[in-house]
């Protein structure tokens, strides 16, 4: 029963309010028509499925209804961070202790007005 910090509501809320939506950072190919069948299949179905640090997409379904990302250890279930759409994770399999500050969490959208701006690069 996870306790999840919603980066938009800015507080911890119970897992019951959220829904997991699979692996994070899977961008729809820019030009679907030029994709091969294998590329399209990869986009639709093939997943990293790691044991360990994993980035996943969740939605605060009963709450602010915003989608956001969670970096979570799929074995221990520890949540290392949550971050808004368009932001990059600080923790990853390559950086389990977190990237140094200057590289990580570059976009920290604190004010609501910055919301839309912060979403650019969502597809990354």
């Amino acid at each position, binding site marked *: 029963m996870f306790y999840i910090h919603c980066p938009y509501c800015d507080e911890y809320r*119970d897992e019951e309010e959220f829904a997991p939506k699979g692996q994070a950072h899977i961008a729809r190919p820019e030009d679907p*028509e030029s994709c091969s069948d294998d590329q*399209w299949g990869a986009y639709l179905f093939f997943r990293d499925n790691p044991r360990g640090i994993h980035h996943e997409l969740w939605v605060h379904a009963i709450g602010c209804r915003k989608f956001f990302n969670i970096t979570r250890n799929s074995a221990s*279930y520890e949540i290392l961070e949550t971050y808004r759409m368009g932001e990059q994770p600080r923790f990853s399999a390559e950086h389990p202790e977190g990237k140094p500050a200057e590289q990580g969490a570059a976009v920290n959208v604190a004010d609501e007005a910055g919301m839309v701006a912060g979403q650019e690069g*969502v597809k990354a």
Partner: protein
Amino acid sequence: MNQPNRLRQGGRIDRGRTLSFTFNGKRYQGHAGDTLASALLANGVDLVNRSFKYSRPRGIVAAGAEEPNALVQLGSTEAAQVPNVRATQQALFEGLTAQSTNGWPNVQRDVMSLVGKLGGRFMPPGFYYKTFMAPASMWMTYEKYIRKGAGLGRSPMENDPDRYDHLNQHCDLLVVGAGPAGLAAALTAARAGARVILCDEQEEMGGSLLASRELLDDQPAAQWAEQVISELAENDNVTLLPRTTANGYHDHNFVTLHERRTEHLGEAAPTVDGVRLTRSRMHRVRAGQVLLATGAHERPLVYGNNDVPGNLVAGAVSTYIRRYGVVPGNKLVLSVSNDHAYRAALDWDEAGRDVVAIVDARRHPDGELVEQARARGIRIIEGSAVLEAKGDKRVSGARVATIDAAAFKVTGQAELLECDTIASSGGYSPVIHLASHTGARPTWDEEILGFVPSLVKGVHAAGSARGVHDLAEGLADGAAKASEALAALGKSASAIEPPRAETIREGEACALYQVPHEKPTLRAPKQFVDMQNDVTAAAIELATREGFESIEHVKRYTAMGFGTDQGKLGNINGMAIAARCLGRSIPEVGTTVFRPNYTPVTFGAIVGRHCRELFDPERYTALHQWHVENGAEFEDVGQWKRPWYFPRKVNGKLETMDEAVARESLAVRTGVGILDASTLGKIDIQGPDAREFLGRVYTNKWAKLAPGRVRYGLMCKDDGMLMDDGTTSCLGENHFLMTTTTGGAAGVMEWLELWHQTEWPELQVYFTSVTDHWATMTVTGPDARKLLSEITDIDLDREQFKFMDWRNGKVADVPARVFRISFTGELAYEINVQANYAMHVWKTLFEHGKKYDLTPYGTETMHVLRAEKGLIIAGQDTDGSVTPEDLGMFWAIGYDKPFSWIGKRALTRPDTARKDRKQFVGLKPVDPKVVLEEGAHIVVDKDQPIPMDMLGHVTSSYYSPNLESGFALAVIKGGRDRMGEKLYVPMPDGQAHEVEVVSPVFIDPKGERQHV
């Protein structure tokens, strides 16, 4: 004296309140404050149950949650039955009625015990796997008899009279266990102003302090506990939960606490002020930090016939004497490996009964308690252990000899000591269950000879729960750990000054689990490890011989630890025996993994109030009450209650569904009908990019839809499969109203947000659900215009207000948006009004509709009518493997739209582009009386032997009073090329219906009726 083992004084029971109870049909008396177990022992009831596999007589072994034997069936009425209640945890109440769970015809004279005695040796572990295989056909018969022996207690056969509920709790610090460490911890946190929850599974808080010999601040320890508890009770930030077991530890410090609110009051919950109390309550706690002060379980020694009634763990003896004023026997032999357990003999002695001997496995025991026992003249037999208990239904003696524990052998001549009670102690296992629920593996601590918990973030352990057994140290540990826990939350709390406790110097304990016997284990008298599942040391040895080397294998092969006690007494002993047999150390053999629950929890408590009429929400439209009052039968669609059909009374008889549906459909085709369509999902879409967005999520084109117009659209997932459909209306250049299927509403809303938030945030558009805001009434049929024109100011002229237009105005004096769209193929108007006014509009329509015989219809008629028109229902005619092309809806596919809309790319994959995919067609039974079964499959050759080649299946099928024939919709391989072909639908009775493949549009293929 009717309670022969009750002491004249002492204990925490209320001698002024005598309670009667019935056990196995016989009446007894006990006192308020007793458990069922203490009351049975007070009355000298030795035999409380029969064992599961061998039907051996069993008595009470322990005094708490670890009790493996004393399981009873509680309840005097059928509805109040509770199976498998642990007598050691059941508070006595007036009129309590209990029975042994095993034993037939009764626990004293049990027929099955013969089987156990004679057949026991034919039932080694795994014997099921090795037998009952021949002949193969007999297994089900064998199994029938095996099943007869299954189970402990029995399920009630009537519905539960009781209610349960949940309470969601949050706190800074959850302290589990109100013994010395827990109380010190809670006090530390409470005084620092933290939000604290303190729970304890027992009837009374205080844990070991309630039966302790030690003084705290020169008073009895229980008094200190009382003072602390009353201070905590005064504090608004502290929640005290006695009778509350922390049964499961879930991720991120989510702990479930099962509070038994009324089980000490009666077998069913009492009623107060007309409201029945909840029998138990599950506290769903999210704790900032958790401190486990769960204490330790004493390990009994494993020796021959250690299951005969009269064998107890040493600490239980002390508890019964000191807490309940009950001495469970007359002559005690105490077999120990440590000093701590000497307390049992001292307590026994002080109760005025005979301590025959203390048999100590250590050569030279020398602690303070040993000295005290010596000083009292108690015989101490050193370097020895009880090899074997004598007796059948009660211990009659103990065979004692010197042993070499390390070499696992008996070194001296056995001596038989006459006694009626054998208490044993092989050390103390910290209660690590909750910590282990988190997935953290416990580690073996050689110093305390036990597993200590590994702790994930946010969890702390204190006192005996981590092997700190000394009272003074435990108190200090609790306070210190609480202060650490709060520090982790960024709160400072200085540890309380613990009360003064004398430190008793204890000698070193020795490691002893299974006591050696003169005979090898496989030949020795049964030495029980897990009494509830009748697992013996021999069984474990045999398992290891057969190659089961992992402790998990041993447990599964022997069933050790799979009882309702989850091996609280036996698991460590079992591991030690496996380790001995394999020549490994205990940690090499493995750790034990505990799962929730710590002790079993009533289903009802987990369910809470989510049952009966509150099991799942019922969603109602604004017109629901009218439907109920007008006799509607309802269909469950998602959580909605939708009218299914409206049976009328005809000649005093209620119509069947077929009759009602025939009447309703004819009314729509020939007069006018009305449907409550409010359940359709409705999404308001605003923004300059709304149109672009629609073009991306729908398969068809939206660029040119003008305000005032409506269009039907198909929505796919990116795998090209249909997901939902509906109409979307253009309300303004940048403003649309989308409708979805009833079941798809929430999913589509989230789908739009998903794409907007994650892929196309640059599109300026907002979505808002307005499903509940609008009530929707569909008035349809040739007379629809006439009816509506009576009560609207909207110009309904066919040229002014065309098919697929929408207009606004007033209907029944209420502002309305009216959409001229049709799901029946008839002239139809969908009237949308703000839901608060819906009932007025609906009733006004009926007032004016009387002369047209306005007929309310439900979902069934709606299905028939739309099927006659060949209109699909997403989810019925499609199943997640159907593309818009499969449906033949090429007119709704915008192949040349500039943006590669969701689902488009997938359509050209090799399998999706196949020409012989299953395609949507109509079927007409050659015999018009035939109504095909929905779900039936279609074949070319009705005489083909099984397995038959199936072309597809019937997705929708009805009788049409308009066609005067059955008709169906289906998906069939290459269906569009099969028009006119005759195919077959084989039925279970061997018949096959002949059908003709036709267009799915059965009525008005040109669509003239809806355009009138």
